[in-house]
């Protein structure tokens, strides 16, 4: 097996035992990028020189006897997470030339651990979308079928990990943007509890919903990345001072007595019967391992999508007011005076999906409509939270599908605004309630990967990692997941 095909856990063990060098590993990933990136297009910006230099530095630390699980591991970062000195575009024309003068806290932590930055991954513009087709630059192709989307908005990160163009990646999740692409690409994705991981340096979309998290090849890899990025950050006042456990302790294949709720509404909502079947099979695997499985109900889930599509655009319209052509990014129409410059810069800089959300959000917050839309949605959010609280009092975690279908075709849903948004119907409620949720590959439908979503209690990522780990060990998809069918022909 080639080095880049191994998991983070396997590679860090080999680095520790000095069987391989960090330089050798980075070269292996860069060679895979050279072969496959023209077909996958997972990246907006590649940073091979940075990667080679960081790999040399990591090897020097290893040579000096130092070790931690991320030292020397090539990692990709979603292009809405700030990287000092490396272009960060949010896949938008309005930030096409923006070079952050500082690192996001998660990037600073990864660098301190000695991770190697391979590049910045493609996404839907400003993380608004479910297919990565709303990137202002180019679409990304699913490694399981190049004619299909990788999901979104962290589609570049998911495709990069699945095709071994990075060993692990960071994404961001506002309505499902880590979990849904993880499901579509056959990788593991975790949206941590809101406040668990610092958002400092994450370019804001909807601040009360955004959260950074890992996309990885295995649940163990996810735990290793979480160990580095989780924790209170003085630079993000919404990050929470709750002790961070060593997530490696969650990597035990035991779920005996774990109470697992199965909310029936998560199997309606347009879920394809074959997807529901794969997820039920996965839940049976956990039951055989000793979990106590019981059906439950969260009827408010049907209000999740409308609630989200008022609150997220409202927050977006406010957050994106900063793009005015004055301090950074695109500037158009200077001859039109300062107001004209702002109006032209924004109209030319933002894509249609972003403009639509700004318009909806501005409308929902405008005088006379605030109570009917924004306040109403905030109250619906309370009711949704109360239902989840009731369910979570009875169970240790909830299990359901991550997405209603496997990956759809590129171009299939771009002209149907609602159909595309319905792909997030099972992930959005989790953002509205702030809970952590993990997507773990649980088999295939027509050769395309499907994800099992495990939703946990606030700040109890450890339990959902343990459930995910148990399932992964028992189900044994790993060997298949290492070789995505869409890239097999390209590599032979």
């Amino acid at each position, binding site marked *: 097996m080639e080095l880049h095909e191994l998991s983070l856990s396997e590679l860090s063990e080999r680095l520790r035992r000095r069987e391989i060098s960090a330089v050798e590993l980075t070269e292996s990933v860069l060679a895979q990028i050279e072969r496959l990136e023209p077909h996958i297009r997972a990246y907006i910006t590649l940073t091979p020189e940075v990667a080679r230099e960081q790999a040399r530095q990591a090897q020097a630390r290893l040579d000096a006897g130092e070790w931690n699980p991320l030292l020397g591991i090539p990692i990709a970062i979603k292009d809405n997470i700030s990287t000092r000195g490396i272009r960060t575009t949010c896949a938008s024309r309005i930030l096409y030339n923006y070079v952050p003068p500082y690192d996001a806290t998660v990037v600073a932590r990864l660098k301190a651990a000695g991770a190697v930055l391979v590049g910045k991954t493609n996404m839907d513009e400003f993380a608004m979308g479910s297919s990565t087709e709303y990137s202002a630059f180019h679409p990304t192709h699913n490694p399981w079928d190049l004619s299909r989307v990788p999901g979104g908005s962290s589609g570049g990160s998911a495709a990069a990990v699945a095709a071994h163009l990075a060993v692990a990646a960071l994404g961001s999740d506002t309505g499902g943007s880590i979990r849904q692409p993880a499901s579509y690409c056959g990788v593991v994705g975790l949206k941590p509890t809101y406040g668990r991981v610092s958002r400092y340096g994450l370019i804001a979309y909807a601040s009360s919903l955004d959260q950074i998290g890992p996309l990885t090849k295995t649940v163990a890899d996810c735990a290793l990345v979480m160990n580095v990025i989780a924790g209170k950050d003085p630079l993000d006042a919404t990050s929470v001072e709750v002790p961070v456990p060593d997530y490696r302790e969650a990597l035990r294949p035991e779920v005996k007595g774990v109470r697992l709720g199965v909310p029936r509404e998560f199997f309606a909502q347009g879920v394809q019967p074959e997807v529901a079947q794969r997820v039920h099979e996965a839940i049976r695997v956990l039951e055989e391992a000793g979990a106590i499985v019981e059906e439950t109900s969260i009827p408010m889930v049907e209000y999740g999508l409308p609630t989200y599509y008022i609150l997220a655009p409202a927050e977006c319209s406010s957050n994106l007011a900063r793009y005015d052509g004055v301090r950074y*990014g695109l500037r158009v129409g200077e*001859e039109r005076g*300062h107001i004209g410059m702002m109006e032209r810069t*924004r*109209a030319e800089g933002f894509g249609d999906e972003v*403009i639509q959300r700004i318009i909806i959000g501005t409308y929902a917050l405008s005088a006379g409509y605030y109570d009917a839309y924004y306040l109403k949605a905030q109250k619906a959010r309370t009711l949704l939270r109360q239902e989840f609280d009731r369910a979570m009092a009875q169970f240790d975690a909830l299990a359901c599908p991550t997405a209603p279908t496997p990956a759809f075709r590129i171009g299939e849903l771009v002209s149907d605004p609602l159909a595309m948004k319905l792909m997030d119907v099972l992930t959005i409620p989790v953002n509205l309630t702030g809970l952590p949720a993990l997507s773990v590959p649980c088999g295939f439908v027509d050769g395309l990967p499907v994800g099992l979503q495990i939703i946990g209690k606030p700040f109890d990522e450890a339990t959902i990692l343990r459930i995910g780990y148990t399932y992964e060990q028992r189900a044994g998809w790993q060997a298949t997941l290492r070789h995505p069918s869409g890239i097999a022909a390209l590599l032979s």
Partner: protein
Amino acid sequence: MALTLEQMRHVAKLARLELSDEKLLQLMGHINALMRHFERLQALPTDEVEPTSHSIPVYNAFREDVPGTPLPREEALANAPQARDGLFIVPRIVEE
């Protein structure tokens, strides 16, 4: 509930977006499809419900008031479309 072209023009102006009527009409279809989907929310009884703006309660996130090192001016200006003498340059905003 659906937005009219007149409302679209007004909201675009509020959001500082210069969009032609043709563009607004094109976006209106998508926007109103979503607005129709929101309708179901209006039927939800919420009279006695408190709004939630933040899903994980955080109270008084205080920190020590310690001076730090601000971003150097040159770095803060490095991304500016136009800068001069340590300042952002914008079109004239006051008449002579």
